[in-house]
């Protein structure tokens, strides 16, 4: 488009009016980002839930507006009013009512994953309602009327956007600080029960904040729809720009969020005007930085802000009784399980059609990639939204290193390189709270998608061929190989869970503050588990490439990591068998929709629906099945297990069996002093200093 060279030719006066034009465009973009981001901040500060679906809700708002104003030809103002004041708030209320209320007593991970499920569900739902084959357009407000400012023209639509953004800022400030419902909305996040005690109604406040958040999302969607077009993904991922802005305000400060939006809007538009053209030496190497970096500005900004954000203080939050948690694995069950799994896979390969061998092999590869989330998310409580990106790194490595004959050194390097990249991505976010790591991984997934995987230098002509070693050439043999690899990694994961590292991860998930005061370096621990996870995903990617014998950028799109997380959590992300179940379930969708085409759009929405329903069973399907089986076995043995079994949870408020005595029913004698010495045994210097 524009370039410095062109501008320089245009002469001094044009130089200035160009600058003015970019500035105005920047401010207009900023205004939209600010509106979107303020909705995000409102829900976060008032409900304590980071709403990943904010962008998707805005997208639905824009489509609904199109339906009313364009398709049904309602007057513009009426359509806007109905969307913003009726439909969007009603949707927000519904989300709160149906989804969020069910999430009490679940972990932050579950809450975030549920909003990711909502995102994915809406992305899949929109094309079902609004067929992508139809061409849709919304006009700017006031039919694009404009006035001139010097040689720059400004549309009324742009003026409206800026005015609305300012009005939202003032309105939110007044609402949250000067009105009763607003003040109690802010209080809900601090303590639900306390608000109740003071006569507030936390349920109403939470519903109100979701309604308001959805309305703001829809507003941003409607205002930007004429520019972005009615395109599901670009509207949905407007939210990334909102994240980048909101993170400047640490997700809580509205003024700083507006500042972030302004910086982002201006930088983006100046980049359009002034970013130098791609240097020739890069073009020669099939690398284009100019266009790709421009697209990636919001995620680059997100990263930079993460790097400079101050360390968040650790807070003790008190022990909460959770509905989550699964039985520890036992070696006997694990080994029998893996053995049975390999034998079953080998047997199944004998009966599957050639095509289905590949389909189900793919399911197993997905299971392997989901397994990468078991230590990270299941044990450690950290979220990654970039597992398919790490898989992509693994696939590219395997293609380039493994060569025609699929040298297995490629697999080793795939693991190591994915892990190393994982470390680089995670480092800036690890000092911060979990939500920031999730955001950083999402930003990274986009960066890789738009800037790296899109380069010809990486994926050559849009696909890379990946070799297999001769002994794995046969697809049936390869399927068994995948099962073996899954089992080996699974054994490592079980081994970790039963050892000190797994305990430490579990502890870190439960109480970071307590871990730190026991001497655990949280950053190092998170880094270790993140690298492990990225490495397993890289291995999964290498297997993915070898299975298909090719790898393409679309396999590893940013979006493709969302269903991986959703299905892993639905299967049971704290268990190896949960990852397997998740993979099989996910892999079964294409097989089923091929067999029964009528189900195909339902199956597209399925991961979203499954994600949304997690509130009901946050421990995943594998745990449910395991518990049922175990109970059935116990029943047959005539054994009635009492409360000793922690995996099957009752509602959090129900009373539980308590051991009556503390065991302190004896005196305290010299042997106890010996015991103390055994436990603590202090350094010589301390003991030597003697009593004062």
């Amino acid at each position: 488009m524009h370039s410095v060279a062109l501008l320089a030719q245009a002469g001094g006066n044009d130089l200035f009016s160009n600058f003015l034009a970019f500035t105005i465009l920047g401010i207009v973009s900023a205004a939209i980002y600010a509106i979107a981001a303020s909705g995000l901040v409102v829900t976060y500060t008032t409900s304590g839930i980071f709403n990943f679906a904010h962008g998707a809700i805005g997208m639905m708002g824009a489509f609904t507006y199109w339906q009313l104003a364009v398709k049904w030809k309602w007057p513009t103002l009426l359509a806007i009013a109905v969307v913003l004041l009726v439909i969007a708030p009603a949707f927000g209320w519904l989300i709160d009512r149906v989804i969020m209320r069910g999430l009490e007593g679940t972990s932050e991970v579950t809450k975030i994953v549920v909003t990711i499920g909502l995102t994915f569900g809406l992305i899949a739902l929109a094309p079902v309602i609004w067929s992508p084959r139809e061409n849709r357009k919304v006009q700017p407000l006031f039919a694009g009327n404009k006035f001139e400012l010097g040689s720059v023209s400004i549309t009324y639509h742009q003026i409206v956007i800026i005015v609305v953004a300012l009005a939202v800022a003032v309105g939110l400030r007044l609402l949250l600080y000067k009105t009763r419902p607003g003040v109690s909305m802010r209080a809900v996040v601090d303590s639900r029960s306390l608000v109740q005690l003071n006569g507030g109604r936390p349920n109403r406040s939470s519903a109100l904040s979701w309604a308001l958040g959805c309305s703001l999302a829809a507003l941003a969607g409607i205002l930007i729809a004429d520019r972005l077009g009615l395109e599901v993904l670009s509207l949905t991922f407007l939210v990334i720009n909102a994240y980048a802005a909101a993170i400047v305000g640490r997700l809580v400060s509205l003024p700083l969020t507006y500042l972030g939006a302004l910086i982002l809007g201006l930088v983006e538009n100046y980049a359009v005007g002034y970013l130098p053209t791609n240097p020739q030496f890069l073009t020669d190497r099939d690398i284009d930085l100019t266009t790709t970096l421009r697209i990636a500005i919001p995620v680059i900004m997100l990263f930079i802000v993460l790097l400079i954000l101050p360390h968040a203080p650790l807070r003790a939050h008190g022990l909460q009784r959770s509905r989550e948690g699964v039985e520890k694995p036992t070696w006997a069950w694990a080994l029998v399980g893996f053995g049975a799994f390999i034998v079953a896979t080998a047997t199944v390969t004998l009966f599957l059609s050639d095509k289905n061998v590949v389909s189900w092999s793919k399911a197993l590869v997905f299971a392997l990639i989901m397994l990468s989330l078991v230590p990270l998310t299941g044990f450690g409580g950290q979220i990654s939204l970039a597992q398919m990106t790490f898989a992509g790194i693994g696939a590219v490595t395997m293609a380039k290193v493994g060569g025609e004959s699929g040298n297995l050194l490629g697999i080793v390097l795939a693991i190591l390189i994915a892990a190393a990249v994982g470390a680089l991505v995670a480092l800036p976010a690890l000092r911060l709270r979990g939500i920031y790591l999730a955001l950083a991984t999402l930003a990274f997934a986009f960066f890789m998608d738009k800037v790296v995987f899109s380069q010809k230098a990486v994926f050559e002509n849009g696909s890379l061929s990946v070799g297999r070693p001769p002994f794995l050439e046969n697809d049936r043999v390869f399927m068994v190989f995948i099962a073996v690899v899954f089992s080996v990694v699974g054994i490592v994961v079980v081994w970790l869970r039963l050892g000190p590292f797994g305990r430490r991860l579990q502890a870190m998930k439960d109480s970071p503050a307590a871990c730190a005061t026991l001497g655990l370096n949280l950053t190092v621990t998170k880094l270790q588990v993140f690298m492990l996870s990225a490495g397993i995903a890289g291995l999964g990617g290498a297997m993915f490439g070898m299975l298909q014998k090719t790898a393409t950028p679309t396999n590893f799109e940013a979006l493709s990591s969302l269903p991986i997380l959703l299905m892993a959590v639905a299967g049971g992300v704290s268990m190896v068998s949960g990852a397997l179940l998740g993979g099989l379930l996910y892999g079964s969708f294409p097989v089923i929709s091929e067999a029964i085409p009528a189900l195909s759009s339902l199956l597209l929405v399925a991961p979203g629906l499954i994600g949304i329903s997690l509130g009901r069973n946050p421990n995943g399907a594998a745990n449910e099945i395991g518990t049922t089986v175990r109970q059935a076995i116990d029943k047959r043995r005539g054994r009635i297990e009492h409360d000793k079994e922690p995996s099957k949870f009752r509602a959090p408020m129900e009373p539980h069996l308590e051991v009556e005595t503390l065991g302190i029913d004896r005196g305290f004698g010299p042997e106890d002093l010996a015991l103390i010495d055994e436990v603590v045994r202090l350094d010589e210097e301390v003991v030597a200093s003697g009593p004062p």
Partner: protein
Amino acid sequence: MALLDVTGVSVKFGGNMALTDVSLAVESHTITGLIGPNGAGKTTLFNVITGLQDPLRGKVAMNGINLDGFAPHDRSQRGMARTFQRIELFGSLTARENLQVGAEIKRAWDGGEVRAGDRVDSAIELIGMAPFADLRADRLTTGQARLVELGRALVTRPKVLLLDEPASGLDADETEYFAKILRGLAKVGMAVLLVEHDIPLVMKTCHTIYVLDFGKVIAVGSPAEIRQNQLVIDAYLGAPAEVEA
């Protein structure tokens, strides 16, 4: 130079001073009490000492080494451990595993000549955890949970032990036994800082008592001195009915 030195610590939350110029010293081989009404700033002071809260001013030193800029885990590795007023056990682990985590973290950074498992077993015996050692920590009663937190702090072999209302939730007999453990800990050389509303317990175990009110130290002294201090009686001890159990 005491084992733990707090000098001139102030903390501000929004517009409110939670702590103003607080100084205290905790010697090894002693139990030091820290008492005061709810909201006086006791837990905040613990957070400052353990590095969970940055002070506005002031410093914390251990063995004369200024801990400014030390992360919580660095402080712990120098020999500090604490319990929490609002219990911070690892809810999805069993009581025994809670102790194991503590012992294993400790062993990971100092190599420790005692096997982590042995230390855990001794601790379980010492604090009488055996009957509930294999229950999930989020299923424990408050009293049990407090003991597990004590055990988890002990297995890191701290030189300085900070206890935030450890006896709330314990009955009279349990408190009695608990007091004996505390004395035992002091006897082997530990420096214990005890925040507790159970005044009789504080009076009979502590060597020195600090009294905090509205973020300020209003009195320091032996139990006998504190009991007679008019300021303390007015602010805290005065009407026994107000003292929380």
